[in-house]
């Protein structure tokens, strides 16, 4: 189970809305206590694809984030990206490019901008998808 503070959810939402019509992306970090993952920090990254259908994170930004995560004694919990026009479920491309089976993949759907939907997934071997509960606190 993942816990996300409301203010951090709002940061993700604002980043995604500001990125429209393109996809937006970022990373999440925090601490793990038993089976609970607490998101302590959200990092807003640049989608270097500048596309409404694809995203790639900027590796230089990723490196800077990695260092900040370590400096804060957090662990990388996962990444997030928006789907401006499709549901909050991993697409074929999302599954194919989910190379790290240990992290969560969060997807924020803006298909209905008045009712954004955020879901979290684990993806094994590019095909086995399981949803993980994400609670906004």
């Amino acid at each position: 189970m993942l816990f996300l503070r409301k203010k951090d959810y709002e940061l993700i939402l604002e980043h995604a809305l500001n990125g429209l019509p393109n996809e937006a992306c970022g990373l999440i970090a925090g601490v793990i206590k038993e089976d609970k993952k607490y998101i302590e920090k959200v990092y807003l990254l640049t989608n270097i694809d500048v596309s409404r259908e694809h995203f790639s994170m900027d590796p230089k930004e990723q490196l800077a984030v990695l260092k900040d995560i370590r400096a804060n004694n957090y662990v990388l919990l996962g990444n997030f990206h928006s789907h401006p026009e499709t549901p909050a479920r991993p697409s074929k491309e999302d599954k194919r490019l989910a190379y790290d089976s240990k992290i969560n993949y969060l997807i924020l759907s803006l298909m209905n901008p008045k009712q954004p939907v955020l879901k979290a997934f684990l993806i094994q071997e590019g095909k086995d998808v399981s949803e993980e509960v994400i609670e906004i606190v």
Partner: protein
Amino acid sequence: MFITVAGIKKEVEDGTTIEKLILDEKIENAEYVTVTVNDEFARREDFDKKALGDNDVVEFLYFMGGGSF
């Protein structure tokens, strides 16, 4: 010699290349990993050529991307 890998200092054999380090560290899906040495992005074609040096700092970054369809 000693190097720092993903924030952890460890001893490796002299002459260790990035390719050998990837194998030793059992990096999943290594073909999609970007490597930095002392904050410089290493070229994939150099992974098996360039030996790491004492006190080098190595990071592994997974490509992160996807799409809507």
